[in-house]
């Protein structure tokens, strides 16, 4: 308790520390927002709740890490992860997801949970259970007498995340396939009547989701660490963000992603690093309770 008060006092005494926490949070939150956007896409288009989201992120990270071990430039790992994870997403869709689309939601939740367990363990067997990361070897910038440190690697990571997000948004808005995806999300039957091959759209959407997650993972391995069993925390964060923002609400997803990044940094600063995971989960519960209280006013429930 004293420690918490002391930490709060520290924040009040040095306002510039707040700035550092927010910068860190926004950098991390940008990557959460990417994974969450993929989840919102899959959830909205084919009504599948993918609990293996975080494991796609980690798998993308391992692609980049393995490439770097073989002497590839680390920044090339991001497109490599994007392409390879696209392929993996397509395989997963053909083998598993296509069979759960028409079923009730608990089926997809549990089936992807099984998939998450499998993926985590396969990565554990292939790459070992140590935490891994890529050192880009760039410098760190210091501001405000060294109180704020911004590694250039992190800046590059955030820029790549923003670039990827912008690319995906443009694609969704202007390309023919993007239009088909949005049409299918609105009404899959009507889309089928209009001559859209929804099966193809589903496969494309899931592969795109997996590729976005993979690219996010490839960025994470440069600015952070990955480990085979870290996947579930990314899945939980993606669920928090999508539940808070709602489906098909892209500005909401980005805001919520940045917000949860900052909230986690604040939480771990105030309560101690041990609570970082707990805070993500508690935020999920708080968001659910808040959504619930909104619905209860109209005597509705959260379905």
């Amino acid at each position, binding site marked *: 308790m004293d420690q918490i008060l002391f930490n709060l006092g520290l924040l009040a005494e040095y306002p510039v520390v707040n700035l550092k926490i927010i910068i860190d949070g926004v950098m991390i939150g940008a990557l959460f927002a990417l994974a969450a956007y993929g989840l919102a896409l899959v959830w909205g288009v084919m009504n599948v709740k993918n609990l293996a989201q975080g494991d796609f992120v980690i798998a993308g990270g391992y692609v980049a890490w393995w490439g770097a071990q073989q002497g590839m430039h680390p920044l090339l790992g991001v497109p490599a992860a994007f392409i390879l994870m696209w392929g993996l997403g397509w395989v997963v869709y053909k083998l598993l997801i296509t069979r759960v689309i028409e079923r009730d939601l*608990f089926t997809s939740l549990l089936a992807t949970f*099984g998939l998450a367990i499998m993926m985590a363990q396969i990565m554990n067997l292939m790459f070992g259970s140590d935490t891994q990361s890529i050192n880009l070897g760039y410098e760190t910038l210091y501001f405000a007498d060294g109180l704020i440190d911004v590694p250039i690697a992190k800046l590059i990571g955030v820029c790549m995340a923003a670039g990827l997000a912008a690319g995906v948004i443009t694609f969704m808005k202007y390309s023919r396939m993007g239009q088909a995806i949005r049409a299918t999300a609105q009404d899959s039957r009507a889309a089928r009547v209009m001559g859209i091959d929804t099966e193809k759209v589903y496969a494309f959407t899931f592969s795109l989701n997996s590729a976005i997650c993979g690219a996010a993972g490839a960025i994470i391995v440069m600015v952070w660490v990955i480990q085979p069993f870290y996947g579930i925390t990314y899945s939980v964060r993606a*669920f928090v963000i999508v539940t808070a923002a709602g489906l098909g609400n892209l500005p909401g997803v980005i805001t919520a992603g940045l917000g949860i990044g900052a909230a986690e940094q604040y939480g771990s600063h105030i309560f101690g690093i041990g609570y970082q995971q707990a805070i993500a989960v508690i935020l999920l519960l708080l968001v659910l309770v808040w959504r619930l209280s909104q619905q209860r006013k109209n005597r509705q429930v959260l379905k």
Partner: protein
Amino acid sequence: MSKTLFYIILGIITVIAPFAFPAFQTQLATLWLMIIVAQSWDMTGGQMGYNSLGNIFFYGTGMYVAAVVTIGLVYPVGEYTGAAGGGIYTFTPDEYFLGMALSIPAAGIFCALCAFIIGYVTFGLRGPYFAIGTLGVAIAGGEMVSNWDWIGGGQGISMPSYPYNFDQFKTVIYFLYAILGIALFFFCRWLYQTRFGAAINAIRDDEGKAEAMGIHTMRYKLIAWAISAFFVGAAGAISAFQLIHFEPLETAYQTINLGIFMVVCVLLGGKGTLWGPVIGAVMFHVFKELTWNYFLGWQWVALGALIVVVVVFFQDGLMGYLKYKRPEWFGIAVDTKEAKV
């Protein structure tokens, strides 16, 4: 009449099994644990249609309540955990058995109270949101406990060890599980025939209509979850005595182990049936132990694949399959003439 005979034979097997296969006593005890958690999951998941992924919360909470009650009766808990093996704390046999007798029901009752409080919030959620919300409760519970130094934090907590010899200890644990499991089975058998059983089935089939018919759905949901939590918590308390030392994230609040196994057991056996969870737990446990023996290292991959295959292809489970193939065994009359037309 033959049914009574069947139960008697099963009862005799239950009593004889630990003595006939002494090397498998711990395995059989774990099998009973699986049956208990699967059967209690089915009460809300199968019979009431609320698929919780967070029932493991009650298992972990039950373990910790058992530890705190047993230790707290003799020593201050904070001092005991703070010593971290440094001090010498002995428990006389009387203290041990008193702790056991008190802590198992205490864990059950505490978990039932937790279920009331958590359920009051989470039962507003439906379908997948309920599953995610309860999963969140379980993960958050584990994280909070692992940061709580009074009960040992991430290091976990040690129970007193059994005062007499170890073989006897295994038998005692087996029978504790078995008694709890049999009690749960017959309790469910009775409960599903009462008005209460009909009410929770109505909630599963159409909650809105059930409410319109004058069923206080919230009250029924809370009571059903509390009953389920009571048994899971009591099973957790027995596990605490069995494992002696346990830590929060991997043992007590083991979200991806037992927490998901109990759901798979029920799906494997057949959701919403009395015998489904029992049969499913036996099948799952045998599969799990075989993969553990022969695919060491790949056992998790095999289990994940089993979950995927069961969920996607055999969601009705064995009982559902039999119901479809042999409806007359379940007292369902099928008019074949009508079906042909």
